[in-house]
């Protein structure tokens, strides 16, 4: 990865935002945070190409990750989405991969894991 990335992090946890900010610092031009699916759709609906990658939490208030992903796809989103979740059942992971998320990352994760997965998605 040579180009620095613009990443949108969608998660209701402030600590996850802070950890991602720290982990992704070496590869990001900017990282923006929103706290649920409603905010994510609002942020992206008129600016679908604003980011190189979206990291989307599964379980959030107001609108969860899968619903948010579906709505964003219906709006025409082409940006790769990496689902982030504490759900680790193979059927949950399979469901999201089949729906078209680019990658799935289980919590907990470490910096090397998130950087590696982003590298796989972007390259």
């Amino acid at each position, binding site marked *: 990865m040579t180009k620095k990335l613009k990443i949108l992090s969608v998660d209701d946890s402030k600590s996850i935002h802070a950890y991602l900010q720290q982990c992704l610092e070496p590869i990001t031009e900017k990282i923006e945070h929103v706290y649920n699916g409603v905010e994510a759709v609002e942020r992206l609906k008129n600016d679908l190409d604003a980011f190189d990658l979206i990291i989307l939490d599964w379980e959030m208030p107001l609108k969860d990750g899968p619903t948010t992903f579906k709505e964003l796809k219906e709006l025409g989103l082409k940006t790769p989405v990496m689902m982030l979740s504490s759900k*680790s*059942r*193979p059927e949950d*992971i*399979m469901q999201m*991969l089949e729906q078209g998320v680019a*990658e*799935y*990352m*289980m919590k*907990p*994760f*470490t910096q*090397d*894991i998130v950087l*590696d*997965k982003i590298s*796989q998605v972007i390259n």
Partner: protein
Amino acid sequence: MENIHILKFFADYIEAELGIIYVEANYFQLEHRLKDIAVQLGFTDLKALYHTASMGISGQMKSLLLDLATNNETSFFRDASIFKALSEFIVPDLIKNGDKSVINIWSAASSSGQEVYSIAMELDQARLTNFSIPLCRMLASDVSDTILKRAEAGMYSQLEVQRGLPSKLMLQYFDKGETDKWMVKPLLKNNITFRKINLLHYWGGIGLFDIVFCRNVLIYQSVENKIKIIKEIVNHLNPGGFLLLGAAESLFGLSHDFEQLVHGGAVFYRKK
């Protein structure tokens, strides 16, 4: 450091057994690990461990000492370009004459198994588009009993299974256990044999190979040991066979038996 003579004793032992050199700057790390071993073996402190060790090292103590010295930091598809080179260049090169019914591959420092399972996954994926890839038999070896048992078990924590492994392949080749453990599916293990081998000692009838992965081993060795290991690998490689080293390693000044090749950014060696 009050225990310097004790640390030197163990550093000398590890160097004699494995060729791995502990410089004094890393004695603090060695001391920390030896204290863990002392606790595991029921000694009151490092001096008590030394007292017993100085009369002879064997059994569990030997096993633990060898474990502590080997760096088992690894991930699936570590240095991914090597695995692409394997499926896109190396295997096609081996079978281009059409007379190979089996390809023998050796993962010489397999650690906890991620490398050999990555090889198996890469080749299984490659078979989806290249039907001419023959049966690949793999030998996975390591100097450490403990780590070799882990490799053979093929059971990884949630963090381990995410290191380097895309989710799609994780679902295809691993089953999730009741706890947060992920287990390699039997189909991936079918053609892999696990065996304890110390690369500095006699390798004993392991046969000939077409491809040898010996990554991140030489980096810890003295020049004499590097030459010795490479010479033995040459003797165990078929003509035209391939040697793959770690990203920070090279054969420069060590051997004239290979030609260096590059594919997709990966550097590797073919026996002349």
